[in-house]
């Protein structure tokens, strides 16, 4: 610790190089930060508050195969289940499917249950009532409203494909959510009404609200046991697992994240190693002087390692801060609706980022630092470069 000022002065000696290195590490580290945050949100983090109270039931065969509506009553009888809501992917086309932003997710649901199930979403009470009481009403998320500049009372036409027909919905509510809200919900009755008799009562998923997060695996098992020998067996999982499962249809997302992270980390390692090698090479004579003054090889090793760690931690911190901004962007992007809730400014992610940066700094300077600390005094003093 005594040598901290010396370390900092040393790293500040060639300002341009240090700044460029910090910038380089920072830019790469911000990518790594986003990847780590995504990885942790998908596979490591525990669901938060309300999300932990929600389970999703779907057909065991596939999401593309429906469940009978009659299951709803049976699910609601299972102890610990507070309610089960129909949530069916509508698909369909808004204007022109070739434009990416037109393909926002839309679901047919039960209006009176939606905002109890997603209690963390906020909507003015009168808008909520209008949604419940008007059959052709729909509610949209704030993000969706902003994308298309939709206002209350606007009409949104959709052409159905899974559920054929032309539908027109009136925006009666706009809700706010902390997560991505690029989404539209409408009344399943309106859709059902226009379908032929035999196509009614087909449900994609049931969203279940349970009484206690502790009971989630017991209730999930109970639901699946209930329908094991029925015509359509079910698969019940937490909302988070469901969303990650949906995402994995894009491809092997986990491998994608791991490989890119590895490439980014290795790049940072190279950048940092290069900088440290350059700066140690310039200072061989100086190291000789320090040794003459009585600095032990151990201290010199520490000085150089410390310098590398200081630089890469600075880069890592900046990178992490940029990554939080990027993460917000990812969450608000049209793709964000398909992602699990990402936590911006997660302390665990910050700690991992900065620890990784420190580790990379340490590793990258090991070779030049060992070389410098081991060099004999006379040779070090003789060095001209």
């Amino acid at each position, binding site marked *: 610790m005594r040598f901290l000022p010396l370390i900092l002065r040393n790293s500040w000696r060639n300002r341009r190089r240090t700044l460029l290195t910090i910038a380089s590490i920072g*830019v790469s580290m911000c990518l790594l930060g986003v990847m780590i945050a995504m990885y942790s949100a998908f596979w490591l983090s525990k669901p938060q508050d309300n999300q932990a109270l929600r389970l999703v039931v779907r057909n065991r065969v596939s999401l593309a195969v429906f469940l009978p509506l009659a299951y709803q009553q049976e699910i609601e009888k299972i102890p610990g289940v507070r309610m089960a809501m129909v949530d069916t992917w509508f698909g369909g086309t808004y204007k022109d499917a070739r434009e990416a932003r037109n393909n926002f997710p839309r679901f047919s649901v039960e209006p009176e249950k939606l905002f109890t199930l997603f209690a963390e979403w906020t909507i003015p009470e009168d808008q909520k009532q209008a949604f419940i009481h008007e059959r052709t009403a729909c509610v949209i998320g704030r993000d969706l409203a902003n994308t298309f500049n939709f206002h209350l009372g606007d009409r949104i036409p959709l052409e159905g494909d899974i559920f054929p027909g032309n539908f027109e919905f009136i925006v009666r509510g706009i809700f706010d959510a902390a997560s991505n809200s690029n989404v539209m919900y409408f009344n399943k009755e309106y859709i059902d009404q226009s379908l032929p008799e035999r196509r009614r009562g087909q449900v994609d998923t049931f969203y279940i609200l349970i009484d206690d997060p502790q009971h989630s695996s017991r209730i999930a098992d109970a639901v699946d046991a209930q329908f094991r020998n029925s015509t359509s067996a079910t698969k019940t999982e937490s909302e988070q697992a469901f969303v990650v499962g949906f995402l994995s*249809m894009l491809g092997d997302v986990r491998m994608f994240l791991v490989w890119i992270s590895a490439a980014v980390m290795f*790049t940072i390692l190279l*950048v940092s190693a290069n900088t440290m090698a350059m700066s140690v090479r310039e200072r061989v004579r100086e190291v000789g002087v320090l040794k003459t003054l009585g600095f032990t090889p151990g201290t010199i090793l520490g000085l150089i390692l410390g310098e590398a760690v200081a630089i890469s931690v600075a880069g890592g911190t900046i990178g992490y801060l940029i990554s939080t901004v990027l993460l917000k962007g990812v969450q608000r992007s049209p793709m964000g609706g398909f992602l699990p809730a990402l936590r911006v400014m997660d302390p665990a992610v910050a700690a991992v980022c900065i620890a990784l940066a420190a580790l990379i700094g340490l590793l990258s300077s090991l070779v030049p630092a060992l070389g410098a600390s081991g060099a004999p005094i006379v040779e070090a003093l003789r060095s001209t470069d």
Partner: protein
Amino acid sequence: MAIPLSYNLRNMVVRRTTTLMTALGIALTVAVLLAVLALVNGLRVTLATSGDPRHVLVMRKGATAELTSLVTRAQFQDLKFKPGIAAASDGQPLASLELITIISLEAEGSGTGDNVTIRGLMPAGIAMRHNVKLIAGRWFRQGVNEAVVGKSLSDRYPAARLGKKLRLGRSDWEIVGVMDAAGGAQASEIWGDANQVAADWNRVLYMSSALVEAPDAATAKALVNSIGDDTRLDLGAELETDYFARQTQSATPIEYTGIFVAIIMAIGSSFAAMNTMYAAVSRRAREIGTLRVLGFSKLSILTSFWLESVLLAGLGGVIGCLLVLPLNGVTTEVGANFSQLAFAFHITPESMVAGVVFAIALGSVGGLFPAAAAARKEILSALREI
């Protein structure tokens, strides 16, 4: 007068550790970009070989995917006899009414299910797909629960190997054959008799789509229009090749993410390249002074150092191409239309050139400032520097 290029090359060799480390940093950036391009390219190649320009895919009006399309048997009876459809050797029109649905299969050691396409089709449907060949076992028989699986599936899913029984809709199916599709998407599907699949899924009246074959590509185009204009039929049609080309969209999120990552990494490595070049400039201050005394102009100093940076980045680009080469041909999957599609990474010479150009662009931006700094040095102070 220009400074000879060998001066730069020798300098790079003398400082080989620094040169290599900087080049490797650039190489990784290029490798990430190329890997993503190879992924998207592989998907494109697979989809391009899946369709036949003589095939017309018929779906419900407005449907964009077979999975969400509905075609009734009655509609198919009318469609079958439209003029322009080629005849099979037995005189019947080459038309197949098909049912497409999905099941979830578990990959080896993954524990999670992937979605796999099941296609129920008529004998004409098999005959029409000229790229699909049986590589093991035999074709399924009509009226029995027998299935033939694509090679990509039987390789990846233990439950889908020859001789196994697979639970599809409500009953068990025996796998009697394995097919390959010469790189086409059909190698990621499971095929069975249309009527059996329909019965198993309890979808007897409504099938998904119909595929018809015209004698040649020009007739196929005309057929697309005549089906689309037929108000009584009330169906939409498009060339099968167009349908598959549209599926390439499913790789768009991966493509954009990859390019975004590569650009950010490029910013990082151009800073690193700048660092290396600044160090080169400051170490060679006396050399620069000497060169100026010998009569080389500021411009030739600038060009020389800039070229060195470009060379360094170009080297990185080439290493990046080499790094990514082993990936060529490796099989991977993406989700397309709610089901998995297996395909191989495909590295093209064009994308390798693009990678090297990307590296050189990165190096020329990163090298500009250090080269300018070199050119600005005063002769006397440069000579005096140690």
